[in-house]
């Protein structure tokens, strides 16, 4: 398990540093937008009488949220909201402030280590010498595979946005990541044109099929907020992947040189 030990050390160091870095970036760029959107989400929830825990005050909340929904829209939104918010009413969640941010930091770091493990495993499978600069290119590929490609069909969403059923979106996300990663691998790691053409086709395929969409698009948050969130997520993700690529390349080189 010597190889695994070295890969794990590489990934933990790179994921920890990139995770702490992206936690700070998230606190500046994305978390404030999420918190703002939750204010709109809460107001919309309270305006929907079918939602659990919103018995008497629907009229006031409705005027507060400033939304004019027709009867059918209302019912639809209510049932969607009911489905969407099972998680919030059905169990523990960290309290706002320090506790919530501590869990976000932990989750960011675990995400960093998870992606770093995939990168380090890919470096080892390729078997070529690494350095920070090659790592940077891998990081950019990671950004394309895990953020850009799935984000085209399923853009980053603030809380309170209606979306297709979760499992369908998760399946499409995973399929898009696999096809985009496989497509890029064919383009970069083979020499024959046929394979490159197949690679491009694999990248296009999930978008030609189309991402699962909700019956109707609706967001509790204003469109400007939703749009600024898309930009914030995409750019913070770019920074994360650049950092993770450089760090994994650097630590991988050190781990496998020291042997």
């Amino acid at each position, binding site marked *: 398990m010597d*190889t695994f030990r070295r890969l794990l050390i590489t990934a933990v160091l790179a994921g920890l540093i990139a995770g702490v870095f992206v936690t700070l970036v998230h606190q500046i760029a994305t978390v404030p937008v999420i918190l703002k959107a939750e204010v709109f989400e809460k107001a919309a929830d309270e305006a929907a009488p079918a939602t659990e825990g919103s018995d008497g005050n629907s009229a006031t909340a409705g005027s507060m949220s400033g939304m004019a929904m027709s009867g059918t829209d209302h019912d639809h939104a209510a049932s969607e909201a009911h489905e969407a918010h099972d998680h919030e009413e059905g169990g523990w969640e960290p309290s706002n402030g320090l506790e919530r941010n501590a869990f976000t930091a932990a989750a960011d770091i675990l995400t960093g280590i*998870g992606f770093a493990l995939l990168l380090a*495993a890919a470096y080892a499978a390729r078997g070529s010498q690494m350095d920070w600069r090659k790592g940077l290119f891998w990081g950019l590929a990671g950004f394309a595979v895990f953020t850009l490609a799935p984000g085209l069909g399923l853009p980053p969403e603030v809380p309170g946005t209606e979306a297709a059923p*979760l499992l369908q979106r*998760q399946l499409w996300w995973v399929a898009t990541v696999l096809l985009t990663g496989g497509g890029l691998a064919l383009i970069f790691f083979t020499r024959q044109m046929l394979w490159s053409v197949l690679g491009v086709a694999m990248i296009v395929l999930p978008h030609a099929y189309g991402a699962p969409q909700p019956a109707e698009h609706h967001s509790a948050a204003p469109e400007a907020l939703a749009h600024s969130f898309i930009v914030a997520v995409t750019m913070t993700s770019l920074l994360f992947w650049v950092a993770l690529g450089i760090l994994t390349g650097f630590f991988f080189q050190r781990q496998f*040189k020291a042997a």
Partner: protein
Amino acid sequence: MQANSQILNQTTPNRTAAGSTSKADAKLGIFCAAFLGVALLWGVGFSHINVFHNAAHDTRHSNAFPCH
């Protein structure tokens, strides 16, 4: 011995690591690392378990993992 380490060199992650790692060790290591990576990402970003979702909520949104 020389020829043997040449073969190992082609399959191990790095030429200098060839002395202490074997082909099987490299394969197992790569598989375990990738598996652990996927497991971590699934737990943080994809698990439907409420506690996992709520703890990692802002990370899921910030990474555009499908959420809610």
